[in-house]
């Protein structure tokens, strides 16, 4: 039997929490994609996989994932990308804060509108990093840098399908 048509926010409260394993392995997978040997323009335009998975869990599992995890993951990304320690941490924390603020609003939309909202957050994260580096004397790396947040936001659809729709469907099939 199909569940009653609840509003998205209400459904969120009744939803079963995602397993710790799923959260951990999705973040691990995102980190793995992030540290593939990207270079040149590909590197500039590389979507920030860790950020999009982090935003997904911030919005869908606000009780397990928050700014603390974002900060720690940011440090890990900084070290593996040999960047100034703390700049990804700052960008991720700011983006996750934004996600916490507009979380309820995002949940009431479908995936295309959600993508637009997420794009705002990813642009905020990219601009934080860009302004930090420009402040420290680096050159503007090229316009491809501004493609990266768009691609990051476009990852929202696949990530939602992979981490939300698929497990929920599997659970429903298991229950029926």
């Amino acid at each position, binding site marked *: 039997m199909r569940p009653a048509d609840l509003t998205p926010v209400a459904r969120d409260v009744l939803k079963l929490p995602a397993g710790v394993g799923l959260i951990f392995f999705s973040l691990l997978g995102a980190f793995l994609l992030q540290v593939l040997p990207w270079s040149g323009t590909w590197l500039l335009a590389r979507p920030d996989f860790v950020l999009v998975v982090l935003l997904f869990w911030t919005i869908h599992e606000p009780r397990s994932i928050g700014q603390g995890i974002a900060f720690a993951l940011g440090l*890990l990304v900084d*070290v593996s990308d*040999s960047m100034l320690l*703390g700049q990804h941490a*700052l960008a991720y*924390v700011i983006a996750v*804060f934004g996600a916490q603020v507009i979380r309820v609003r995002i949940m009431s939309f479908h995936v295309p509108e959600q993508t637009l909202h997420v794009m705002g957050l990813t642009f905020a994260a990219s601009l934080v990093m860009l302004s930090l580096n420009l402040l*420290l004397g*680096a050159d503007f790396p090229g316009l491809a840098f501004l493609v990266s947040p768009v691609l990051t936001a476009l990852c929202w659809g696949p990530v939602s399908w992979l981490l939300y729709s698929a497990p929920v469907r599997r659970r429903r099939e298991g229950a029926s």
Partner: protein
Amino acid sequence: MIREPPSFFHRGPSPLARLTFFTIAAIVLMIADHRFRALETVRLSLSVLAHPIQELAVVPSNAVGRVTDYFSSQERLLRENQELKVRVLEQSAAAQEARLLRAEQQHLLAMSPGKSRYADGGTLAEVLYTARNPFTRKVVIDKGLQAGVASGMPVIDGEGVVGQVTNVGTFTSEVTLVTEKDQSVPVMLVRNGLRAIAVGSGKDGSIDVPFMPVSADIQNGDTFVTSGIDGTYPPGLLVAQVTSVEKNTAYVFAKIVAKPAAGVQNHRYVMILPIPQPGAAPPETRAQESRPGKARGGARGRRDATR
């Protein structure tokens, strides 16, 4: 299966308080890392944590490379072999001459106290990948603390200077390329011994030579080698070839652009050279604030004093 009921009431500090806390923490970290370089141990331990995942990430591309190598045509290998043989012949004469000169120099040094300025030996390393940082020009190599690599060591390839080790991990280290913005190498013009400082321009495949007077005798096609006066780079390594000289009398300095001699972006194996003189000034890593020649000025003073 019993699950905990959802907690309806939020506990702990508010998101804004958390944001403030983490922002301050991040800014403190950045200042400590950028200004005081106080976090090398933190970086080292975190990099050990991230190392297995990074190893895993380069597996697919390495496998593709190996398969391509395996199926590379015999013709190509033969051609490459031929080219290498020609090069060995070309270089053997120069190498014999260098051996003779070196023996002479050692005799001279034996008469006067002082250490050899020429590097002995070196460590071969493989370039793993380009550092994934769009703001800098660095590569990561597969030798670290375990192989005795230290921060500041010069790195060369078959053609010339590639860069300098600026960050050492346990198994890997980072090499800042000579094209990195503000990465400076003390150089000497081969033709007339004119000394200068080559500074990376931050663009691929180009190096600037700033602060040369308009009257300086520099022409297109001149080659720069390391001068060795910094005590970090051994003298005589090829650095760059001048590609454009713009002398405008309206400015005090000439605008000189050179092309790095080493295949800075596309080499696979590099050689890490030891620092010839113990106690040489460590390089400015990630030095966006460094002024070219500032730190080197001190090193030069010491060098001259010891001579």
